């Protein structure tokens, strides 16, 4: 029945990585599609598309969410941070450096989501315990690493960020 209906397009104003974007979009567009297809920010991945794997994790007003399960119109007037927002002045974020140094990735598909979940963790809790690290990324699946090196990388980044 909806096919016969003319689809109304809606204007959204969304801030992504500090930059304001105004777009007129179909209401059915998911936030992850908005980021990838409208803004061409393809760092955020679509993995399972069923709210399971966490590859699409971005921060919405500072809190990690699965952008495959948020409509872009729901993010109107919000601030989004994606993996592209981690790097500052051509310098990788300490989390990115730590993932590289400690082999916290193999194929890299889950990495943007892992980074955003761990970024949110360290913003709220700069000295997380092993248990807290595990709980923070429990919604992010990795099929390569076995998680071990990811835990090590997050722990190392936390320590490095405290020292600096």
């Amino acid at each position, binding site marked *: *029945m*909806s096919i016969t209906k003319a689809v109304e397009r809606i204007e959204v104003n969304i801030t992504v990585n500090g930059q304001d974007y105004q777009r007129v979009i179909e*209401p059915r567009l*998911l936030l992850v599609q908005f980021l990838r297809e409208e803004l061409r920010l393809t760092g955020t991945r679509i993995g399972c*598309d*069923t*709210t*399971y*794997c*966490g590859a699409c*994790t971005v921060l*919405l007003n500072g*809190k*990690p*969410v*699965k952008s495959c*399960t*948020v*409509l872009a*119109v*729901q993010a109107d007037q919000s601030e989004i941070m994606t993996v592209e927002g981690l790097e500052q002045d051509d310098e990788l974020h300490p989390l990115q450096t730590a993932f590289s140094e400690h082999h916290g990735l193999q194929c890299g598909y889950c990495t943007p989501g892992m980074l955003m*979940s761990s970024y*949110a963790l360290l913003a709220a809790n700069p000295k997380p315990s092993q248990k807290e690290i595990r*709980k*923070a990324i*429990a*919604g*992010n*699946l990795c099929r390569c690493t076995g998680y071990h090196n990811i835990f090590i990388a997050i722990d190392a980044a936390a320590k490095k960020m405290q020292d600096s």
Partner: protein
Amino acid sequence: MREYGDGARALAGGQTLLVLMKLRFDEPSDIIDLGSIPDMCYIDHDDDEVRIGALATHAAIAESPLGEMIPIIKDCANGIADVQVRNRGTIGGSLASGDPSCDWPALLHTLDAELLCEGPDGQRILPIQGFVEDLYQTALAPNEILTEVRFKRPPINSSGAYAGFKRCAPAYPTATAGVQITLTDNNLCQDVRIALGSAGLTPIHATDAERVLRGKALNAETIEQATEAAVNAAEPVEDMRGSERFKRSVLAVLVKRAIDAATRRCRGEKVEMSHEYY
């Protein structure tokens, strides 16, 4: 809701509805985003009563003073899915979806909650008992929305625990059990509520199990009998999470753990409790 008719759906956090739509289990003609309604995210309490706005997220509830005041609430709110889903999913959405895997419908049976519903004909207050009528079917009229969850604050000699088991954090639970116990001064079970989640097409309120414990001392024998009655009340359906038999054995463990933790909390002990996963 009246304007758009029966095919319309109210959207809260979207953590159930959007998933159901992707699976083509639901194909709404229109979606009405409740996110634009202000002031539906409150988490309030006074000396007698707790009132939670339908759009309060699981994360906000877990972090609110309620979490410390009423431990069973924190067990549940902190154990649902993962960080990302807890940041978006709401208590109202969990109830209104009628999804048998959602935790709040089962949990709120342990607190005798009431649900405030509003539609074109005004407000009604529905008891949690019977609110989920069948699989994805609730007592809400098509043009009605759930606006508030309210329940009496448990007395000082009462505490509870919510135990769940799931295969991994983002997975729906294999089974869950919530127990709220009120103990007398001489350690008898003055009153108790036992509810099971993901244990049938609707939440299971294990009234037979409650009858076993009410007025009795909590010991190995009575706990065993109550657990058996609770597991008998369950109607688990075999699916990818396990066979009926497996789910009944998981439920038995969860009911016992929840009774144990609730009793210890009644006596003032601090007990960590949440959904367990590999």
